[in-house]
Structure formats: C-alpha cells, structure tokens
C-alpha cells in the first residue's frame, strides 16, 4: 500500500502558471505523477505544456476528477487557496509555500481538522510515495519503494534521511514533510496512525527539531499505540534559546522546546534516537532489529 497518495492519485497545482509552480508541476509529471490540471484565477483556458489551467479549483475538480493539490501561490493568498481546495472536496492538500502569517493558519487549521481532508504544510517539501506519486519539490530519484515511513519537519534533512535509508536498501513507503511553521495541518501523531495501519510500512523514521512539543506528544502516542519499530532524530541540539533557526517554528522559547527534552521523551518511549544526522538510516536498522 503506502499512505495518503499512490499511482491512482490525480493531482492539480494551484499557482501552476508561476515559475515555481510550473517548474515543479513538470518535475512531478516527469516523475510519473498524474498531473491532471492547474489553477490560476484569470488564466482558465490556457495550458502549461499540455496541462489544462482552470480559474477555480471547483472547476478543475469537476473537469479532471483531481483528489489532491499542490499549492505554490504566494503567502498572502495561501490560506485562501487551502480553503478553496477544501471547499472543492480535495482530500490531500500539500501547501509548499513558505511565509504564511500564523494567524491565517489558525483559521485554516480549524476548518481542516473539522473535515476529512488532510493538509500537509505549509512551508514543506510535500510528500512522495516512491515509484508512484510525487507531490512537491523533493528530488524524486533519491527515493526507492520500500519499508520505511519517513516523516519530518525539515526539507533537506529529509532528503538526507531518504538517501541513507535508500543506501541501506530499506527504501521508503511514503515520505511526508510536515512543514517548518508553528501551525501545520498534519502532526506526527496523524501520520503515526496511518503508518501503523499501512501494510507496506515496516518501520517509521521521525525527524523533528527544536520548538513546540510535537515530538513529545508523538513519543507518548508511540508508547501507547505503535507496535512498529520507530527511530528518530532531533535537529538543533546546539541551537541557542530565543533564536529562530530558519524555520518559523524552530525556536526555543521560555526554556521549552529544547532538543534535550525531546530526545529524553523519545528515548523514554523506547524510540531509537540517532545521535547525529549521519546515523538516521542506521537508527532505523537498529530499531528494526529490536
């Protein structure tokens, strides 16, 4: 199986006529993703290298049967684009855009959680089921179909983890970049539930970072509900308090959200924690050995 997306997933791109939207739409199509359309208000009727452009998501869904979207619209319009996709009945919404005001996401988050749709991001690389469907900006060729479910708050660090698991011959079931913002649509726990229920996923690799308490919550969930082996890595052991480390959500505030706390919580839940980013793949191997 895999989670969230597979070879049957039909994808549109909101913001397809922008340079990033176009570039990555074609990249996803080259990978083998069914890119069935795109949306740019006011540009309906045009096409991007044979991919039809629509004015609204509603219209795109009606014409193409799309069930997933990849959002590249600029930050001021991202919240609206997510809500439009939700309204049109799209089930998997990946918001790649970085720089969305956090108060906009409060509004979006509540609507997403009250629905049966899944929002990945914003400020994320997207998600990929190797060999079947890529929705996002990750380099497809480093992925191999396989056993490990990879979920992460970071982009390039995920590529590093994928690279390592590929090199060890494990491959990946589905890799999901959750996003680096304080409020993102999907949590580690949401994905743990899906990976636990997925036949193809034999082990789970969780890549966290400083800030917030998502890793601690995930650790508690793993202890109670996950029987598959789980490995983890936390970025930011050397990050100073009060400073934002690139991602809007990566900040130690009021002494909370440190890597030390997170590693302790993960280890207490029986999760194998990689001591350095070079050991992520090996940590999965170790976790699988039990």
């Amino acid at each position, binding site marked *: 199986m895999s989670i969230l997306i597979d070879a049957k997933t039909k994808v549109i791109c909101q913001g397809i006529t922008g340079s990033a939207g176009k570039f*990555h739409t074609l990249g996803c199509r080259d990978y083998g993703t069914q890119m069935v359309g795109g949306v740019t208000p006011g540009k309906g009727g045009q096409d991007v290298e044979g991919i039809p452009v629509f004015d609204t998501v509603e219209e795109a869904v009606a014409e193409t049967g799309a069930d997933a979207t990849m959002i590249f619209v600029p*930050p*001021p319009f991202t919240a609206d684009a997510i809500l439009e996709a939700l309204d049109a009945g799209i089930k998997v919404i990946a918001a790649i855009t970085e*720089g*969305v*005001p*956090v*108060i906009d*996401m*409060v*509004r979006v*988050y*509540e609507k997403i959680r009250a629905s049966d749709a899944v929002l990945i991001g914003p400020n994320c*690389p997207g998600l990929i089921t190797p060999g079947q469907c890529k929705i996002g*900006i990750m*380099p497809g*060729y*480093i992925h191999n179909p396989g056993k490990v479910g990879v979920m*992460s*708050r*970071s*982009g*390039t*660090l*995920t*590529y*590093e983890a994928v*690279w390592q698991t590929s090199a060890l011959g494990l491959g990946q079931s589905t890799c999901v970049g959750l996003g*680096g913002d*304080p*409020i993102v649509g999907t949590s580690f726990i949401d994905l743990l539930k899906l990976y636990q229920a997925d036949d193809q996923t034999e082990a789970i690799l969780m890549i966290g*970072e*400083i*800030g*917030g*308490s*998502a890793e601690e*919550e995930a650790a508690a969930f793993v202890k109670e509900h996950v029987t598959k082996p789980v490995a983890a*890595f936390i*970025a*930011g*052991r*050397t*990050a*100073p308090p*009060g*400073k*934002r*480390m*690139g*991602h*809007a*959500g*990566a900040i130690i505030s*009021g*002494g909370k959200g440190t890597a030390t706390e997170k590693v302790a919580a993960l280890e207490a839940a029986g999760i194998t924690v990689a*001591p*350095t*980013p*070079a050991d992520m793949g090996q940590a999965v191997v170790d976790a699988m050995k039990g």
Partner: protein
Amino acid sequence: MKIHEYQGKELFREAGVPVLDGIVATTPDEAAAAYEKLGGKIAVVKAQIHAGGRGKGTIIDNPEQHGVVLAKSADEARAAAEGLLGKKLVTIQTGPAGQTVGKVFVEAGCDIARELYLGIVLDRAAAKPVLMVSTEGGMEIETVAEKTPELIHKEHFDPAVGLEAFQVRKLCKKLGISGAAAKAAAKFMPAMCRFYVDYDCELAEVNPLVITGDDQMVALDAKINFDNNALYRHPGYDELRDLAEEEESEVRASAAGLSYVKLEGNIGCLVNGAGLAMSTMDIIKYHGGQPANFLDVGGGANTEQVTEAFRILLSDPNVKGVLVNIFGGIARCTTIAGALIEASKTVGFDVPLVVRLEGTEVEEGRKMLAESDVDVITATDITDAAKKIVAATGV
C-alpha cells in the same frame, strides 16, 4: 520582529488599550523637558532596549545605575537619562555584553494598587492564541510557570471572535478582581486580544499590568513581537524597526535573503535547508568543534547569495574554518560548486574550507571543484566533513 516599549505603547494607544502619558527622549535635556511636560510630579525614566529585566538590570561599570529609575524632579530625570543614554545595559536577557541604550522613555507615574501579569502567545499545540494572566505581576513569567504554575490562568480565543465576556469573568474571579476593576478588565482584556490579532503579533505582553488606586487598568509595560511572515500587511512597521538592536551580520544576511544566526564558535557553516543547517551545527559539536553560526542559503541559492554568505561568514574574526554542507535537491550541486568557485575569486579564502556535496548533479559538481584552483578539502559524508573541519581548525 521586536519593537521598543514606547513604540508598543503608541500602538496600544491607537488600539484603545489604556497606557500612561509618556515622552521618548534621546538626550538628558529632552528627558528633563519631558518630565516638566508630564506635569512635573513623579515620573519614571526607562531605558529602551529590546530585552526584558530592565528594572533589575544595571549599566556596565556602574552597578548603581538601573535601567528603570524613579524621578521626582527634572534634575533627577536628567541625571537618570545621563546615566543610561549611550551606556550598555546588562539584563538577564541581554547576555554579558549588554545592549547600548539609545533612547529613554519618560513616563508619568501612577498610583499602583495591584500589579498583575498579562501575556498573549500562540499555543502551538492547540493551534490557537492564548491569553495568560497571573496575580504575579512584575515577576519573570517563566519563573512563575516553573515554580507556581497554578498561578497562571489561561483562556484560548478564536481570532475572528476575540475574547468572550464570560472568559473575562472567569479570569477576574481567579485574579480576585471585582467591581469597577472588573469593569476595566472587561474592556482591557478583549482590547489586548484584538490588538494581538489585528497587529499580527507573535507575542504581546504587559508585565506589569496595573490596577490603579481608582480601579483603572493600565499597561505599565509593553513587550511586542510581530510575526515576521505578516510584515507585508503592515508597511508602517518598517519605521519601527531598530537596526541598532540587531546583530549587524544578521541584518546583512536577511537583506540577501539568507537565514543566518551568529553563534560563539569558530567553525563557519554554509548549508542548504534549515533542518540540515541545524544538524550540521550539531554534528560539528558532536565531533568536538564549535559552530560559529547557523546559515541556511535556501533551496534556490544563486552565486550572489553564496558569495554574500561567504563574505558574512569570513567577516566574523572568530571563524577559523568553513564547512559547506549541501544536499542538492532542487538546488543542483553544480550550481553550488560554480557559486563556490566564483565566491572564492571575489572573496578569497584564508581559512580551511571543507566541502561536502551530495544529491542532484553531484559528480559534475565535485569534478568542477576538483578541476578549479580553489583549495578545498572534500568530504564524502557529513561525519567525514565534520571530522575534517574540526581537525583543520585544530580544536
């Protein structure tokens, strides 16, 4: 983005949050004049820096001079300003180097009956803003949270609706506020919550929040941080930015579209991606070195950005070596390699440079570096890279 107390209070006034009269001053004479203008009774002279703990903080080499001073005459206001302006104030939040005081805020005094705490932040776990109040006004809220968490009372609110009236009543009950003061709270608390939303704050803190002798509520302090992602909605915030409060190299980096944080170590890092940049710092430390910075050149780094990144790294006199760690995804290794070669010509390296490239077009990128005349120590993976830079910098 952080702003000064006096700026926060101007915005409070605009938004209908009660504050005392105050005047900002940049010279001792201005401070004395401000004292007179405020009625010539009692005033408080407050150092304006982007850090908390000013009242207990002291000026370097003058431990008698605190950051917040009571003045009962124009001469006292002048003397306080003289003791603060242009001097470095050290508080628990500034670090030992302190922060230079460029302005003081002269504020009218008031009759304080009670001091409370009020703060609004985003509760990430609940994905909603949360209003926090406490009876422990004037204390460090982190200390209160650690020692007596039961004294902090919280109410989440919907940004579209704001704080509901019943939520104010619940909080007043817990704070032991009734009568006229509760009426004041029914205006003050929702006004602060509206302020938080309308002004796109990341943090809005009033500590202390004062109940006066005649049962009014007044914001005696204002600590405001804005959400950087929302600055585009508030073009006026540009004028509120005080570049003197920010690390020079960080300002320069942000102008070039780079994400940079200066640290204390001696190994400069240039990495693509925030998570990888953080873990590159971590692995340097793991192998015995000390990172000099966090630097994310981003996914679409070009030659100009990489060149500027090198200039910033090498302008730090502590830097004894540089580690470049690139996992080419969308950014190709060839682009980075080309940028490295260009940058070395324009900037010139006089410290060891370790480069680890992986990902898209890696073979071509490595070949470009090998064939160039840039003096590069190549590394095969992150561990190898970290060990080599630590060895090369002789730590």
